[in-house]
């Protein structure tokens, strides 16, 4: 692996034609929401810049992020991007294994010190000395810390690396911990989703490799270009939401007509992701298009936020679980009844007092 190779050279070596390469650059520019002129800039960068290695670590996870990634909509995109990264370390898809694989890790972290990108899928469990996730005989958290030490930036793939996801759901016995709570001194780009959309993953990676900078992030560290809006903001069922036309049951007429899934607990209004624009599986569809509400898979702690099928979900706080509307309506009932009883007793009490006492000594009756 010569150090001076550019991305373009690597791609050509992998058998990608110039024509395909240019197509890839245009596609990427579009996916990133950049103007057509950026296609040229991407091409130029890839032809001239030395390739930045990517190391892809796997912690406690289910591999859905990798599965999504290798199914990038355009086969071209996955070919190109895979040729950029699979050469280095990804214990899932690389050819080498065992000591040979760990040697690559060692080599890259030394040779490209401060200049490689670390992509993390999954997260480290911290309880029981981290032994719930062992890589090469050692806790994953150690590998993560070592590789993170000299990296340029970290990409946290999926909801696991970004927020913790299912393995961190209550009561989180292994104390699975998102990457940004373990590594605090590196820029971390969160690409949440369970899994994230393939085009979003390749888009983020290509952006970082070609422009050698971190894309613009929001407050929670997610790239604005893909996570700047909610599913609800770009959902094609939104006209039915505004009109007040809702599916009330899974097999009703409204469901057949494709009305809004808000009342079925759709979390589109509270979920930041690109599903309603980029969609899934080569842009074929996305959950709402298939008739099921969004479950909010790219949001922090979505497993612990109550039912997928309720709009007003139960609240877990201070050790209790309660539903705002149940408690609220109950409280209104109880307080209403208490007011009625208090009012009635007040009237009786007052009448009694007035009977017992001459009018001028009664508490409220004076100057009337």
């Amino acid at each position, binding site marked *: 692996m010569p150090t001076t190779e550019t991305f373009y050279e690597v791609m050509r070596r992998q058998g990608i034609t110039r024509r395909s390469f240019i197509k890839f650059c245009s596609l990427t520019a579009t996916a990133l929401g950049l103007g057509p002129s950026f296609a040229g800039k991407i091409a130029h960068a890839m032809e001239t810049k030395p390739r930045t290695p990517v190391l892809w670590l796997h912690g406690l996870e289910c591999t859905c992020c990798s599965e999504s990634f290798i199914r990038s909509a355009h086969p071209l995109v996955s070919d190109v991007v895979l040729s950029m990264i699979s050469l280095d370390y990804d214990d899932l898809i690389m050819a080498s294994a065992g000591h040979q694989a760990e040697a690559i890790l060692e080599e890259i972290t030394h040779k490209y010190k401060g200049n490689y990108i670390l992509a993390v899928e999954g997260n480290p469990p911290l309880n029981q000395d981290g032994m719930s996730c062992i890589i090469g005989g050692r806790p994953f958290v150690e590998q993560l810390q070592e590789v993170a030490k000299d990296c340029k930036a970290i990409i946290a793939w999926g909801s696991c690396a970004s927020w913790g996801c299912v393995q961190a759901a209550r009561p989180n016995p292994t104390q699975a911990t998102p990457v940004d709570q373990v590594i605090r001194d590196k820029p971390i780009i969160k690409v949440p989703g369970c899994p994230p959309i393939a085009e979003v993953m390749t888009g983020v990676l290509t952006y970082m490799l070609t422009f050698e900078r971190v894309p613009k992030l*929001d*407050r*929670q560290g997610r790239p*604005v270009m893909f996570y*700047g*809006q*909610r599913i609800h*903001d770009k959902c094609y069922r939104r*006209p*039915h*939401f*505004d*009109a*007040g*036309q*809702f599916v*009330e049951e899974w097999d009703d007429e*409204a469901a057949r007509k494709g*009305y809004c899934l*808000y*009342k079925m607990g759709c*979390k589109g*209004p*509270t*979920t*930041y992701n690109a599903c309603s624009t980029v969609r899934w599986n080569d842009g074929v569809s996305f959950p709402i298009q298939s008739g099921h509400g969004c479950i*909010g898979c790219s*949001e*922090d*702690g*979505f497993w612990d*936020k109550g039912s997928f099928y309720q*709009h*007003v*979900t139960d*609240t877990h706080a201070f050790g209790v679980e309660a539903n*705002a*509307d149940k*408690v*609220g309506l109950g*409280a*209104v009932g109880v*307080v*209403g009844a208490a*007011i009625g009883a*208090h*009012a009635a*007793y*007040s009237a009786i*009490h*007052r009448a009694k*007092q007035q009977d017992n006492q001459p009018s*001028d*000594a009664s*508490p*409220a009756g*004076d*100057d*009337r």
Partner: protein
Amino acid sequence: MSITSEDLLREKRRASVPKARRTAVYVYQTPLRIWHWVNALAITVLAITGWFIANPLPSLAGEASDHFVMGYLRFFHFAAGYVFAVGFLFRIYWAFVGNSYSRQLFTLPFWRRSFWTELWHEVRWYAFKEPEPHKYYGHNPLAHLFMVVIITVGGLVMIVTGFALYSEQTGLGSWQDELFGWVIPLVGQSQDVRLWHHWGMWVIVVFVMLHVYTAIREDVMSRQSLISTMISGWRMFKDDRP
């Protein structure tokens, strides 16, 4: 008007009571009264539209473009939200320029023993353990406590969470986002903000029920005017005893 010995004793016990004979005091100035009723209206609209945002009405048939039910409900919610928020800012301003009663909503003298003893007295009055309540120019301590906690603190929470939710539609970089967007990660995520906003509604609804009941009850049973005070500004006392 006769003064009984019991009244004389009570006069000795309490230092803060009006000594001179006063039958009416100007308490709530015009802007504050206007604020009260505008605010009450805004909260009523917010609670009703808020309920229907969370629990929408049954679907209407026809083309989507025939209707705009959720659109209008949300529009009126946001419009009333702005009225509520601007009113809140005005009310803070008025606390600086208005009379001393206008400051009660933002000050709670919890460090004073007398506040707590008076509060206890008021609680006992509601529990029928006291023959009559004390007289107050401004709010009684129980009302005062609830107003500060629920309208001042609670109202602020509703404004902050409400505008954080609003920033989700005005988008990143909007002033709502710059000012209130930080609330979302602080609370957890968008759904959490929505739910706390929702819980807030129930707290305020229960407050309003109690507030309206006690306003009417005290108007009848206490020794001073209440409802007319919030209309005319004058507190009328029904007796001259302290």
